Every structure is written in structure tokens, then in C-alpha cells.
């Protein structure tokens, strides 16, 4: 997902005096529809610096201290969640219509010590580092040191995992051959279907009560486990209901206070009128919060608030990767919107305001920061909520509606980091919607990414989903697909495919450290044919994949045993009917994904060896390997020859592309269909890299494609940087020579200069380019509309480009928040210049 975009401006600057000195957005900086309320909420969301709250950790530590051992684990988890919902600080901000925060206030993030406990050093780093700082007071750090840290020492998930892993795994992990997602956060990747718009928590509870009543302790060996899980689900439903009620109470209290203020004052009429309006709103908020999530929503406001409470519940209960995602939000909201428009109880502008309030809520929730090395190094923390717009309905018909256009409009106007959003352009999707998306893409924000539902439905069906469940599926996080509301599709970690080749070329040794980390597959200098080399690579690949799966399976089990998620389980089919947790095979479908990085780098390296060593025999293997080992020092002629005279992936050239197809198919064979430890669960692969290709490049020496030591490897399924010289159509042809439906998502980033999108006609042609790619079988494409001068200027003078947003590989971030390596990466991307 190296996709990117640049946004000019829109982060309001705070005036010199904050007192009453509100930001006045220029007319061109905000959409015509962004009213004053939305401007204020947006301003607060954008300007507030992320901070850490220790409230959840304190509640949890106290709760575990008192209750650990007294309750079954699922009930302990649910009761812990209930306890926190009962005690946590409730926030209801000025002007808000949609309410609820995970922490005590916007941008304030809790910690999850049961998974991984921040050390004092972690907290200090987070508080002081340059990028993505999370502020925390000295006092809180001290409380953490004395209260939280000692209790959790040795008891966290992360410690359980690292205490278990075999030495061979540790060596490969430390060499950077793969990453492990679940050592920092819970497995996640969850998107919802439409059930919460049909049924409230009381309905779920009634179903659960019925199941509990009919439990068969005589014959069902799982009866006790099921009973504990169901009890836990009931408690977690109550927790969310209580959380909502506390908002209703607070809203009523605030309304009452406003009422008193109105009757007691003699200020001017506008002030009184405004207070009156707000009082009415607060009472409406109270009404909404008493209705949902207990009951199914009746109107758009309740529907959005319903989702938001469920979202907050899942991300407060546990800290899952990629948080939570409403899935096909336009399809879910459309019936409410259409009904209310028909009944004239809502206007389009009111609908837009409510949706905008929701959008800002998501932006208020940066991801909880990680611990250890990554606290210092990683600079990107968003929660990858990816709202799917357009696409296909469960019955297979076109999913676009007026709401699709409205969501696009909101996203474009608000121009904020989160939530991410994507457009889903199938054969049935009208051109009008594609063109609406083009206009947003033209803005250069990197949003939206573009997906092909016809292909991902086929991917899901191939993985074993029913056609209806596949239609209802989509993409969450970055590019990975799942059956929304019915599947646990956990990302287990990235696989560094070029590193596997590097280790193969060194007969099992990691050349960067000299430590043996892989199989001894033979000295390549003795290989007589390219096939011998490739076979050695394959052996190494299978060895590494097996290592990774062994540990991922173990970790998976640790979550099922120690950190189940009963609330999340309520909203994912068929956890309730099965009486099994989301992490324990409860969902209808259970996928473990391995994300394979560096197809371009691997292909080009193999192409270079095949072409120059084995076929043209221009350079002997020994010379190439020595050159690579010494980072091409003194071998610039060799390096330049390889870089300029090798057919590389991304040019619609069959020599290179056939290698890519072979590598891709062999990755599929190594991973796809292998059982995970859940009933019917399987491993699949996807070709996502997010920013991991930068880390993977850092742990590697030079590669035979001419890439220098430490430089990024290629991202997703995009060609290596600069390797594609024949334009986007050639890239798309290369990428569709392998079958995307064998994966759970591929990723193509294309960078365009603004000159290629200047005119309406140009945008029409870009739309046609996308349609062509999708006709050929492409899964995803993203466009970054940038110019190099802008990026260089931004590097030279970051303070002038604070709001420069770069969308990379499925996520967006502010250019200034990226480290120098990532910035360089963005600049190096091939420009599809139209000149």
C-alpha cells in the first residue's frame, strides 16, 4: 500500500492568542457545506495533540488484582470491560451530536497492559519523541511505575509469547525475515455487516439467554465453555448499554444546567437562543443514547450513534489491530436516510452534519502506541478504519446510492487523516460515481483508494465464503479482504521475501550479521542452472513460512485463552450461536493472513541473476554475489548494467513478469490453504506492505537488482522504485499476469503528476485506466497526485508544509510525521509524467 497523496493546507493554525481567537478558515479551504459546528469540531480534532490516559490501565489493574482467579477468563474479560465502562470518564464536548470517546477526551488514548505494558522508558520516549508524540504527565508516569507496571510484570501477552518462541524463530525474527503482529496488539481486522442496524443489544441478549437456557450439560462437552462465553457476552452487552446511559445522563444534566442558565441570565437574545438550541440538542442526544445500543436504531442519528457505540466498545474492550470498521457504511445508512427524506424529518444538510460528526469522532482516535523499539522508531499511528463506499450489495446488485456521494463529499470537505475511505468500482458501478471519486482523487489527498469488488468477491468465494457473504465483504485496514460481520481475518505479520532470497544467496547466513538464520540450501556459486537457484529459494521460503506459522498459531491460542473479546464476539456471526469467542473459532470464517512484501525486489533480483549470470553469462555468480555483499563498492559498472540492462517487473515484459508470476504462485502455494488452529480456519496471503517495506529494507544488505544496502524494498505488488519505465498501463499489465483471486488482496500504488489530471477529459481517461485494470483482474489501485518539487520543498522546510498529507500503501499520514527514509521513498517513486 504505497499510495500517497498530498493535501495542501487545511490544518488550521492557532492564532497567537488562543483566547477567543478562533481559526477563520478561508473559503477555499473548507467545503461549502461545512457549517460552523463542524468547523469547530474539526478544529479541535485536528489541533489536539495525542495524549496517553492511564485511567483504563488503573481500572484494569485494580480489577484484575481483586478478581483474577475468581472468574472464568471470558467472564473476567467482560466484567473488566463492564467495570471500566461504569467508571471511566465520560466526555461530551461542545457542539457534539455524536458522542463517546474511548479515553477521557478527544485524542486521549488508553493503554492495554494486559497485552503489553509500557515501561517508564517507553512512556518517556512517547512523551518526548519528535514524531507522533503522545503526551503524558510526569505524575501519571510515576503512577504507572508504582501501580501498573509491577502488577503486570511477567503476565502480559507479549511476555507469554516471547517466553515461548523457539530459538530458530527468534533468529529469523531478529534478522527481519518476518514480523509478528500479535506481539503488540490483539489480532483484529474487523468490519461489520448490517446486523446492528436491525438488532439492539437487548435483542442479542435475548438470543443469548435462550441459548443459555437450552444448554446441554449432559451431552455437550463444550457446554461449560459455551456457558462462560455466553455469560461474558451478556455482561459485555450490558457494559455498552451502561456506557451509553451514562452519556444520556450527562447530556440531561448538561441540558438542565443550560436551562437554569437561560432562566437566570439576561444576556442578549442570540446567546439565549443558542443555549436553547443546544439544550434541545442535548435532550435529543440523551434520547438517542437511551435508545441505542439497547434497541435497533430508528433513524439516521440513532444509526450512526449505534455504530459509534459498538465501535468504541470493541476498541475499549481490547486493542485489536486495525480497530473497527463500519464496512459498507453507505449501504447501512441509506435506508434510514431515504426513509427520513421521504418523511421530511431530515434534510440532506442535517444528514451531512451527522455524518461529519461521526467522521471527526474517528479522527479523534489515534491508535494506542506500541512498546519497545517500535515506540521510538515507528512514526505512524492511525487505526486504519477504512470506510467502503459503493461496491456491491449482499444480493449482488450495485451498492451505490445518494449516501455514497454524500460520504465522498464529507470525506473531501473534512480532509482529515482518519477514517480512511475507499471507493469500490465494480462492473455495475455507474460512471457518475467513478467520476465523483476522480474529482476527490484529483485533489491529491491520496484518498480514496480504489477497489475492484468483482475481483475481491471472487477472492472471498475462492477462500470458501458463500456468494452472499462474499458480496457483503470488502476491504478493511489497507487492502485485505474479509466477509464483513462474519469473519476473523487476522493479519499475522509481514514476510520479507527479498530477505529470504538474500539468505538463500548466502547459504542460510544473514549477511548483515553473519549469523546463521535459515536453511543451508547450498552455495549458489556451485549452482549450474537458474532452476537450482530458484529451488533453493523455494526451500528457504517454505522453511521460513513454517517457522512463522508455528508461532502465529501459538499466539492465536494465547488470545483465545487469555484475552478473548466477548463484546466483539456478539457482533460477529456465528460467535453467539456457536458459543465461541472471536479469537476461538467463533466466527463463521477464520482466516490468518501473511502479508508478503517485496515482490518487485525479489523478481528483479531473480531476473538480474537469471539474465546476466545464467543466460547472457555476462557476469559470473561469484562476482555478482561479492558485489552485492560489498554494497556494489567498486562495482558501479556491474550495478549500472544490472539496473539499466535487465528486464524488470512492471514493464509488461514477459521475461521479468513470468518470474513475478512464479514467485507469486509459489508464495500462494507456501501459504494458502494451510490450516490455522481454528475449526475450518486457513492461512491465506495478501500482498500488503503498509510501511514495512522500509523496515525490511533497513535489515537488508544490497540486492542483485542493484538496490543498495538499507534502501526500501518494493511495496505491495508495485514495481521496484524506478523499475517501471513504460507507464501505468504497462505496470497494470505486468501486475495482472498473476491471478489476484488467489490472494486476499494485492496493492498497486501509482504516482501521477497533477498535469495528468488537469482536465475533465484526463480524469475520464484515468477512470478508464482503472476500469481497464479491473477488467484485467486488478484488486486495488491508489493514486498519489504529487510533484517532486513540492516534496523537496516540504523536506527542506517542514514547518511550511505541516498539512502535507501523504498516502502510502493504503494509509495516509502527514509528510512531516514520516521519518527521513519514508520521505525519501515518497520522493523516489516513479513519476508517471505526462510530458
Amino acid at each position, binding site marked *: 500500500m504505497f499510495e500517497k497523496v498530498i493535501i495542501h493546507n487545511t490544518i488550521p493554525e492557532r492564532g497567537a492568542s488562543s483566547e477567543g481567537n478562533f481559526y477563520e478558515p478561508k473559503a477555499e479551504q473548507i467545503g461549502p457545506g461545512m457549517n460552523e459546528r463542524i468547523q469547530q469540531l474539526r478544529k479541535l480534532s485536528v489541533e489536539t495533540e495525542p495524549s496517553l490516559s492511564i485511567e483504563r490501565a488503573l481500572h484494569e489493574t485494580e480489577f484484575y488484582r481483586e478478581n483474577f482467579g475468581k472468574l472464568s477468563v471470558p467472564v473476567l474479560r467482560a466484567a473488566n470491560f463492564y467495570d471500566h465502562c461504569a467508571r471511566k470518564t465520560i466526555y461530551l464536548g461542545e457542539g457534539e451530536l455524536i458522542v463517546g470517546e474511548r479515553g477521557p477526551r478527544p485524542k486521549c488514548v488508553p493503554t492495554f497492559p494486559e497485552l503489553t505494558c509500557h515501561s517508564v522508558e517507553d512512556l518517556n520516549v512517547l512523551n518526548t519523541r519528535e514524531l507522533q508524540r503522545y503526551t503524558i504527565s510526569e505524575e501519571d508516569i510515576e503512577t504507572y511505575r508504582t501501580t501498573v507496571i509491577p502488577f503486570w510484570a511477567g503476565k502480559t501477552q507479549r511476555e507469554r509469547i516471547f517466553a515461548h518462541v523457539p530459538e530458530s524463530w527468534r533468529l529469523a525474527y531478529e534478522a527481519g525475515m518476518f514480523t509478528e503482529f500479535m506481539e503488540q496488539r490483539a489480532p483484529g481486522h474487523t468490519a461489520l455487516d448490517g446486523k446492528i442496524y436491525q438488532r439492539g443489544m437487548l435483542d442479542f441478549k435475548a438470543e443469548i439467554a435462550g441459548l443459555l437456557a437450552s444448554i446441554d450439560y449432559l451431552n455437550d462437552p463444550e457446554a461449560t465453555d459455551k456457558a462462560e462465553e455466553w455469560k461474558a457476552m451478556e455482561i459485555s452487552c450490558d457494559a455498552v448499554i451502561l456506557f451509553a446511559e451514562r452519556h444520556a445522563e450527562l447530556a440531561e444534566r448538561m441540558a438542565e444546567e443550560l436551562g437554569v442558565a437561560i432562566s437566570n441570565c439576561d444576556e442578549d437574545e442570540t446567546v439565549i437562543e443558542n443555549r436553547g438550541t443546544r439544550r434541545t440538542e442535548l435532550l435529543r442526544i440523551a434520547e438517542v443514547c437511551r435508545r441505542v445500543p439497547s434497541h435497533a436504531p430508528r433513524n439516521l442519528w440513532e444509526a450512526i450513534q449505534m455504530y459509534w457505540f459498538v465501535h468504541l466498545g470493541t476498541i475499549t474492550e481490547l486493542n485489536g489491530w486495525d480497530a473497527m470498521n463500519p464496512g459498507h457504511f453507505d449501504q447501512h445508512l441509506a435506508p434510514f436516510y431515504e426513509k427520513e427524506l421521504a418523511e421530511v424529518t431530515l434534510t440532506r444538510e442535517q444528514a451531512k452534519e451527522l455524518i461529519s460528526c461521526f467522521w471527526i469522532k474517528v479522527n479523534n482516535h489515534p491508535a494506542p502506541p506500541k512498546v519497545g523499539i517500535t515506540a521510538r522508531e515507528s512514526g505512524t499511528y492511525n487505526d486504519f478504519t477504512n470506510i467502503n463506499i459503493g461496491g456491491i450489495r449482499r444480493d449482488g446488485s450495485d451498492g451505490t446510492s445518494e449516501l455514497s456521494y454524500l460520504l465522498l463529499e464529507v470525506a473531501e470537505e473534512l480532509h482529515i487523516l482518519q477514517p480512511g475511505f475507499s471507493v469500490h468500482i465494480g462492473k455495475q458501478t455507474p460512471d457518475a460515481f467513478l467520476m465523483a471519486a476522480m474529482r476527490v482523487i484529483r485533489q491529491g489527498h491520496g484518498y480514496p483508494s480504489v477497489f475492484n469488488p468483482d475481483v475481491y468477491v471472487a477472492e472471498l468465494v475462492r477462500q470458501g465464503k458463500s456468494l452472499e457473504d462474499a458480496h457483503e465483504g470488502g476491504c478493511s485496514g489497507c487492502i485485505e479482504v474479509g466477509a464483513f460481520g462474519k469473519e476473523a481475518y487476522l493479519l499475522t505479520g509481514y514476510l520479507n521475501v527479498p530477505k529470504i532470497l538474500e539468505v538463500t544467496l548466502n547459504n542460510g547466513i544473514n549477511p548483515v550479521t553473519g549469523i546463521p538464520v535459515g536453511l543451508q540450501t547450498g552455495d549458489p556459486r556451485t549452482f549450474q542452472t537458474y532452476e537450482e537457484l530458484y529451488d533453493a529459494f523455494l526451500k528457504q521460503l517454505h522453511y521460513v513460512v513454517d517457522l512463522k506459522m508455528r508461532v502465529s498459531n501459538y499466539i492465536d491460542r494465547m488470545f483465545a485463552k487469555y484475552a478473548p473479546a466477548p463484546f466483539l464476539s456478539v457482533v460477529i456471526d456465528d460467535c453467539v450461536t456457536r458459543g465461541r469467542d472471536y479469537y476461538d473459532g467463533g466466527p463463521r470464517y477464520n482466516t490468518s493472513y501473511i502479508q508478503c512484501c517485496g515482490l518487485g525486489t525479489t523478481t528483479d533480483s531473480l531476473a538480474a541473476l537469471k539474465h546476466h549470470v545464467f543466460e547472457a553469462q555476462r557476469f559470473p555468480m561469484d562476482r555478482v554475489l561479492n558485489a552485492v555483499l560489498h554494497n556494489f563498492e567498486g562495482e558501479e559498472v556491474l550495478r*549500472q548494467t544490472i539496473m*539499466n540492462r535487465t528486464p524488470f517487473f512492471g514493464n*509488461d515484459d514477459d521475461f521479468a513478469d513470468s518470474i513475478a508470476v512464479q514467485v507469486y504462485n509459489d508464495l500462494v502455494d507456501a501459504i494458502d490453504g494451510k490450516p490455522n488452529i481454528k475449526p475450518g480456519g486457513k492461512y491465506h496471503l495478501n500482498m500488503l506492505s503498509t510501511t514495512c517495506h522500509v523496515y525490511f529494507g533497513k535489515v537488508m544488505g544490497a540486492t542483485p537488482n542493484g538496490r543498495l544496502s538499507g534502501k526500501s524494498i518494493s511495496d505491495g505488488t508495485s514495481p521496484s522504485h524506478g523499475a517501471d519505465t513504460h507507464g501505468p498501463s*504497462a505496470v497494470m499489465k505486468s501486475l495482472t499476469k498473476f491471478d489476484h483471486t488467489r490472494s486476499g488482496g494485492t496493492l498497486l500504488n501509482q504516482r501521477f503528476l497533477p498535469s495528468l489530471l488537469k482536465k475533465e477529459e484526463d480524469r475520464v*481517461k484515468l477512470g*478508464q*485506466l482503472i*476500469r481497464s485494470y479491473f*477488467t484485467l483482474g486488478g484488486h486495488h489501485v491508489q493514486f498519489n497526485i504529487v510533484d517532486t518539487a513540492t516534496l523537496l520543498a516540504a523536506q527542506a522546510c517542514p514547518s511550511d508544509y505541516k498539512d502535507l498529507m501523504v498516502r502510502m500503501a493504503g494509509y495516509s499520514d502527514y509528510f512531516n510525521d514520516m521519518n527521513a527514509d519514508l520521505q525519501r521513498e515518497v520522493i523516489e517513486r516513479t513519476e508517471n509524467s505526462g510530458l
Partner: protein
Amino acid sequence: MIKSEEGLLFDLKRYAIHDGPGIRIVVFLKGCNLNCAWCHNPEGIEAGPERMYAPARCIGCGTCVSACPNGALTLTPAGIVTDESLCELCGTCAAVCPTKAIEMSGTLQTLEQLMFEIGKERTFFEQSGGGVTFSGGEPLLHPDFLVRLLDECRSRGFHTAVDTAGLVSTEILLEVARHTDLFLYDLKLMDSERHRRWTGAPNEKILANLQALAATGAKIQIRIPLVGGVNDDEENILQTARFLATLPGEKPVVNLLPYHMIAQTKYEKLGRGADFQKLEEPDPEKVRRALEIFGENGLEAEVGG
């Protein structure tokens, strides 16, 4: 001697979106009978292969010097120097240069090779109503090869366009027209003397050909490279507009292509840096006025193409 089944190409551009309808591939055939001062494809003028050298890419490794069979190359502190009297344009140096600092402009391609490359873009043509644009140089200087290509494209259902400056025999032009869906017809200057001064040839034939072509009912788009101080004056624009307005048949769309100087490095690579004339970009006000004039004469005109 080039057979009709082969042509000398100096470029093949995929995802071309400003050279006719839809997404296109542009085939650049080498050789031109004009010599326009503003030419941005100077490597397309010579009919034979040429050697291009980019000193900025040269790492001074000397690989080409030892590879040259004629000893024509010398490595100097300023880069590679060629003794033109010894160079036979055999292309050995370009084939061995590790950085592609030396490249040959002009590769001979057979009909089959070229159709294979063009065919790679089929899906993009089909999704966009695009196709193939033959440009140059002057593609009409290779009429046999061009007609064969046009027929091959048609038989595959690809839309065809020919980008020409029109300085060929009327017979050839009209013959090619029978095989072509769209002409992109360049017009530079209406005054023949000025035309000769800036392009090396008078324009009577070009204008007569355009009239003859229009009379056949061929679909035509007019392309005018607009160069500051050369042809952006109101008088020239007015004459052009009046001429176009009186053409028989459907009124052609006019594309104004403002001059840019990005071709400068190409001249340097060809060793013809001295030939490069830095001309002026047209004044935006004059571009606006030109659009107005075409509009007043009932012609649809836009900037870019």
C-alpha cells in the same frame, strides 16, 4: 533500404492521453521533411538511426571506448567524444553502455513486432475508445508501412489516428486517408514565407492537402503548436481560423499546443545543442485571444490535445 514490413521507430508511448480519443499508444516513426525551429522531437527528423549521448548519465567507465570497433570514441574529462568521421552508427557503444548514457535513436521494427507491442494495450483501447496514433517525424513518409499498420490495426478493431504535418503528395495522403479513422493535422503558419522561414518549407502544399483531405469527409483535428513571437499573432490566428472555417465538410476541432522548452536536453543528447533555439512560450493573453478568434469563426478550440 527499409522494406515495407519494417519501420524505423524512435519511440513508443503507452498511456498517451493527449493524442486523440481515449487511451492511446503513439508510434513515432523516424524521419521528417520539415525542420521546425520549435521541434520537440528533434531525434525524429533524421531518417536514419542516430546516436544520442547524455553526459549527465555517463560514469566515465570507458566500456564503450574499448567496445567500439572503429576506435571512434575517446574518454575525456568532459565525457565521451566521438570522431564522427570514424563512427559508422553501428550501435555497439549503446549496446554496452551500462547507464544508457549512449542510446541509439531509431530501432528497426517489423510489422509483427510492432503489432505485438500495440496489441498489449488492447484492454485499455477497449475500455476507453482509444487506439493507435502514428506520429513522427512525418509518418506519411513511410506510406507503405503505414498503410500496412493501419490495416492491421483496423482488422483488430483498434481506432487509428495519423498525426501529420501534411507535406506529402496528395495522392499518398488520400490513399492513407482511406485506411485512417482520424487525422491530427498540424498547422503552423498561414503566411508561406514565414512558414518557410520557421519550418524550412513553404505551406501551399500543406494547405491544399488539408482542403483535399477535408473534401473526402475525413475526420480531422487541427493541432497548432503555439510559439510566442512566431505564430501567436492575431493576424496569423485570424487567417488560420478563416481558412479552417471555409474547409469543406465537418468543422475540425482545433487544439492549441503551447510551446515548451523541455526538448532542450534532447538537442544536447543529439550533439546538436547549438541548434536548439530557445523560443518563447506564448503569452497567456494571446492564447486566450486565439481561442476567442477560433470561437468567433465557429470553430471549437481548446488548449492541449
